[in-house]
Structure formats: structure tokens, C-alpha cells
């Protein structure tokens, strides 16, 4: 177990390292100069060059990379153009928003968390619930309804659903306020009402996938010997389904859910764009467009951390749910 964790964490760190190096290289392969965006209209080449020098963009790649990594670990001095000293973990200074990237992240990360976590709870409950019900009530109208729902959901796209929901509930019926983010600590009601459309549309699409998955899984489990045995032994239905079948059926769901949530935490660009909420995803996309290296690095790394962590967690959960799995 400890051994597994150590091994897994080592591989995770290696992954993050590789991601950071690749992103860095990717950025410098881009035919885009972050500096030109900084002085519009009448900028002259000499001045651009000085700005590049000041930002260290003329240093060798390795020096720049080492500087960035050193900043994360020990903090570093960025020079007066970038807000002076930057404490560890220093994610750098954004060329575009003119603030420490850690401030940017501190602002947009809660937004993405607020979108993804409730949505994930919703889609898991809805998806797994629907899947279970339609598996247990196989062949009934309930089952058909659930299948129809999930197939429709799986065939629709978020921007489409989002646009229609916005039009109907916000612009036409005016039942909901315009989607926006308010901290849950400031005003939980506003927080919820501002994000509910994002949750619902995410949940609709994702739960469709989970309903399909958990239904299939449940059906397979129900036909397995141990469930039949348990039923034959006279265990009550809810007990069998609840304790035995559900547990077995949910294992693959957990895997996929973990990866989905991990991925979504890295940014839900389409959702954020559709509803006009500035989260991690849009910040990342904006940063790429603007050639804002420090912000690109930070958003990419955070997204990668979520994915990698989700992977580890899924493995652990998997072992917790299914004792047959041995952690190596």
C-alpha cells in the first residue's frame, strides 16, 4: 500500500514534470510574441527588445524553465516589471492581466470548483440512479424513458443545450438570473442560482453517459452468480441490490467518474464560454491566445495535477470498493 502510493506519486511527479516541459516547448514553438501585444500602435523594435530582455524571454530556454521551476519551489525575484519578489510557490507574473498568476488562479479556481463539484454530484446521482432504476425495471416504460433520456443526452452538445436553456430560462422566461459566479461564502443562494444552469446542462449530458454505463454494468452484475446466490439464499431484494450488486456495478463507474471529474476540474471551457463565467478553462484558453506563458504554465499544471490526482484516487477507491484488486 505505502509502496503503491510512493510508486504512484513518483510517477505522478514525473508526469507533471513532462507536462511542464512539453508545455514550455510548445509555447516557444508558437509563432507568437507575447511582447508585441504589450505595446500597441507605435512600438519600435528596440523597445520590444528591451522588454523581452526585461522579461527574460531572450534567455536560453533551459534558463527560463529552470527559473520558472525554481520560482515554484523557492520563490524568485521577477524584476520591477513583474511585481518584484514573488514568494513560493511562485507561478510567475501574467504579461496580460498584470498580476501575480497565483492571484489569477486563486480567483478562477473556486469558480471551476463551484461549477464542477455540484455538477458532478448531480450527474452521478442522476446518472447512476437512472441506470439502476432502468436496470431493475428492465423493459418497463421507465426503462425506455431512461434509455431515451440517456441517448438524447449523449447525442447533444453542451453549447447547444446551454444556448437553449439560457434563451428559455434567462432571456425569455426570466426565471433565473444571468449566470455568474458569486462566492458561496458571500451568498450561497446567489452562488447556486448563478451556476444552476451550468450544473444542469453539464449534469444532463454527463448523466446520460453514466446512466448508460451503470445500466449495462448493473445488468451484467445482476446476471452474475453471486447475486443470484444471494437472492436464492433468501436475502431481501433491497439488501442484495443495495449491498451486493450496486457495489460491484459501481466500480467501473467510479473509475470513469474519477477521470471525468479530474479532467473537468482542469477547466470546463465550453461551459464557461457558454455561460460567460471566467473559470480555469477560459483563463487557460485566453492565456494561450494572448501568449501569456506564466498563466499557460500555471493553468496547464493545475489541470494536470487534477488529472493525475484523480488517477491515483481512482486506483485507491477501486481497491476500497473491490477487494479483489491488489495494489502493486
Amino acid at each position, binding site marked *: *500500500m*505505502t*509502496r503503491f502510493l510512493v510508486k504512484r506519486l513518483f510517477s505522478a511527479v514525473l508526469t507533471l514534470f513532462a507536462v511542464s516541459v512539453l508545455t514550455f516547448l510548445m509555447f516557444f514553438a508558437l509563432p507568437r510574441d507575447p511582447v508585441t501585444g504589450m505595446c500597441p500602435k507605435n512600438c519600435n523594435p528596440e523597445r520590444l527588445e528591451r522588454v523581452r530582455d526585461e522579461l527574460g524571454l531572450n534567455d536560453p530556454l533551459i534558463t527560463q524553465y529552470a527559473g520558472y521551476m525554481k520560482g515554484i519551489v523557492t520563490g524568485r525575484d521577477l524584476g520591477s516589471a513583474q511585481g518584484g519578489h514573488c514568494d513560493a510557490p511562485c507561478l510567475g507574473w501574467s504579461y496580460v492581466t498584470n498580476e501575480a498568476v497565483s492571484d489569477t488562479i486563486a480567483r478562477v479556481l473556486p469558480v471551476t470548483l463551484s461549477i464542477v463539484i455540484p455538477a458532478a454530484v448531480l450527474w452521478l446521482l442522476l446518472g447512476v440512479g437512472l441506470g439502476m432504476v432502468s436496470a431493475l425495471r428492465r423493459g418497463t416504460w421507465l426503462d425506455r424513458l431512461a434509455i431515451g433520456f440517456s441517448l438524447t443526452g449523449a447525442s447533444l452538445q453542451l453549447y447547444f443545450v446551454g444556448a437553449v436553456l439560457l434563451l428559455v430560462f434567462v432571456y425569455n422566461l426570466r426565471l433565473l438570473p444571468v449566470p455568474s459566479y458569486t462566492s458561496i461564502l458571500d451568498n450561497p443562494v446567489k452562488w447556486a442560482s448563478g451556476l444552476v444552469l451550468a450544473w444542469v446542462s453539464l449534469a444532463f449530458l454527463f448523466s446520460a453517459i453514466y446512466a448508460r454505463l451503470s445500466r449495462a454494468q448493473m445488468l451484467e452484475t445482476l446476471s452474475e452468480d453471486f447475486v443470484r446466490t444471494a437472492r436464492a439464499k433468501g436475502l431481501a431484494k433491497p439488501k442484495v441490490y443495495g449491498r451486493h450488486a450496486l457495489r460491484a456495478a459501481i466500480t467501473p463507474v467510479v473509475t470513469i467518474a474519477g477521470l471525468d471529474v479530474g479532467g473537468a476540474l482542469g477547466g470546463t471551457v465550453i461551459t464557461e464560454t457558454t455561460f460567460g463565467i471566467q473559470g480555469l478553462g477560459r483563463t487557460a484558453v485566453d492565456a494561450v491566445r494572448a501568449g501569456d506563458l506564466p498563466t499557460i504554465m500555471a493553468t496547464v499544471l493545475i489541470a494536470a495535477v487534477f488529472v493525475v490526482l484523480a488517477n491515483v484516487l481512482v486506483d485507491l477507491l477501486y481497491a476500497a470498493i473491490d477487494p479483489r484488486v*491488489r495494489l*502493486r
Partner: protein
Amino acid sequence: MWGSLGEREERSAAEYRSRERRQAPMSEVSVAPSAAEPLLRVRGLAKHFPVRTGFRGQSLVRAVDGLDFDVRPGETLGLVGESGCGKTTTGRMLVRLLEPTAGTIEFEGRDITHAGRRQLRPLRQDLQIIFQDPYASLNPRHTVGRIIAMPLQVNGIEPPGGVKARVQELLEIVGLNPEHYNRYPHEFSGGQRQRIGIARALALRPKLIVADEPVSALDVSIQAQVVNLLRQLQRDLELAFVFIAHDLAVVRHFCQRVAVMYLGKIVEIGDRVDIYERPQHPYTRALLSAIPDVTKLGPGGRIRLTGDVPTPLDPPSGCRFRTRCWKAQEICATEEPALVSRGGGQAIACHFPESGPVAGESGGTAGVTVEEVSK
């Protein structure tokens, strides 16, 4: 009867001890009758699987822990024992599906213990395996023809008259309709599938076939057909077999020599008649006594072994059987008994071997019938 057995046992034990002193080391022990050059010669064969236990640490499962035996051309050697005693592991090592941890395997005098795929290639033709599960051992996506032709194809052999003719010939040999060449395994019954598996093993005209519980997954009524087929093939084609089974009756029907395994060791090896009629190791006796229709034992009747098989992770010291042996003494815990030849090709690993026949009356030829079993 038991009394006389006891006497013989006393004597043999003494003899055994004196021999041990003279005839160390172990590997020098001749455990096979020294007739022709053996086809297969196995010495000190062992397989240890590393497993992780608990939160940390690694330990070894000693699945097979030092086997010595020979198989002569055309001979059938039965390998019997309870589940988990290492029979199957041994079988797989013989055909090199598993890499042995220690020991040597010689085939026709060549050491093949660690031979690579390329070096093994010529040997593959002489050394084949039949699997236990007739359902899992045939590729469901291939036609019977392809399955049987696979070894030919893999080894790039173009038999005279073509692959198809050879496959049909093989189908006929194993008693299947050659016209079924193009069918798929799922269209056959278990017995027929096992015949296909046998045909595949025969495709390369091997000299030795390792048959890993070839009939245990089959219906009782079918088992007989398959075993009889194997016996006939063995006679007709002069095949040698290593026949792995937990079913003593089948082994008795099929094998000329029998090796009894317990926890990764051979405890007794000898000719069929010797093993079945004069078993000397307590474990062999216990096994034989468990056969319901060989209950014409003397006093004591059926020997019931108490306790579970110890874990191969941590086998008992000394004699591995001592924890369940009714005759265990102190020495059994401290000293591991060596496999000692007792003439006539029989060898036992026991400090206190039994002697005398188990069931004299039932000796001779096969005696078990379906009617008897169903009692």
C-alpha cells in the same frame, strides 16, 4: 496385514537412512529404472512466485520446490496430487510456458531449461501440451481447421499433401468428422473440443505430450472416451505422456508410472502397480483411501486427513506432510526426508514409509465401473 506392513516399513526406513548417508547428494539419486536414455530428464526443478504480502515485504510462493524425475520414450508418467500442489506449474514449466526458478530440464539430452524461443523451435515439435479446459483452450474466433493447423503454421511446416489434408487426417485420428474442418469451436461439445485440443497437440508429431488434467472438466461419461483415445494414441504413436491429474482412477487407467506430489514436492514415485498396490508414503495411502470404491482396505478403512493444506508461502519445516500425518515424529519436523529409491523404480520421501498392499483383492487390472462409483 498392517502388522506386516509395519515391519517392512521399519526395515525400509533403516535401509533408507543408511542409503542416504552413502548416496548424497540428492540429484545423484536414480529415480527411474535405468533402461533406455530418458526422453525427459528433470532435476531439482523449482518455481517460486514472488508475491506481495500485507503492507510491505515480499515473499515467495514455493509452488514447485525441487522435482526430480525422468520420462522414457513412450512412457506415461502420471503426476497426481491435490489442487495447489504444483502439478500444473510443473507441466507448464516442462513446455516452457513458465520459466523455472531453479533446476534443469533436459529433453533428449539437451538442456532446455532456459532456451530461447529460437532454440526451442525444433523442440516444440516434440513437446506439446493438452490443456484442462476444453472451452478456454480453443480460440473461439478460429475454425477447427485453423486451430489444428496453428502449430504447423507457426513453425512454418508444410506437410506433404498440404495443411488441409493433414488437419483432416488429424481430425480422423482423434475421432472427429474431417468434414468439420470449417466449423467453430462453439459448435462442438466439451468432449469434441478436447479432441480438437488433442489433434492440435498431435499436429507436430510430438514425442512427449504434457496433458494437464485433460479430462477433469469433462462430463463423467465423456471422460472415458477421451482417456481411451489418449491411450490408443499413446500406443499407436508411441507417445510419451506427462499426465497431470488429481483423479487417481484416471491415472491408474492411463499411466505406467505415477508421481505423487504434495506442496511442490514429489513424495512418492513408482510404477503404477507399486503405487496403487503398495503405496509407502502415508500421503499416497491417504489419497488412495479416499477413492470410494477402493475402500476394501483393511482395518482403519478410509484415512481421513485432518487440517488444511499448509500455505506454500510458508511450508512446514522438515517433512511438509507432517502437519497432517498421523505418523509424524520429531524427526519429521527437523529433517526433510529425501526421495529415496526403493528398488523396482519406486522412491519415497518419508522417514517412516508404510509397506504392504493397500487393497490386495482389487489389484490387477482396472476394477472401477460406473455402477460402483454411483453407489
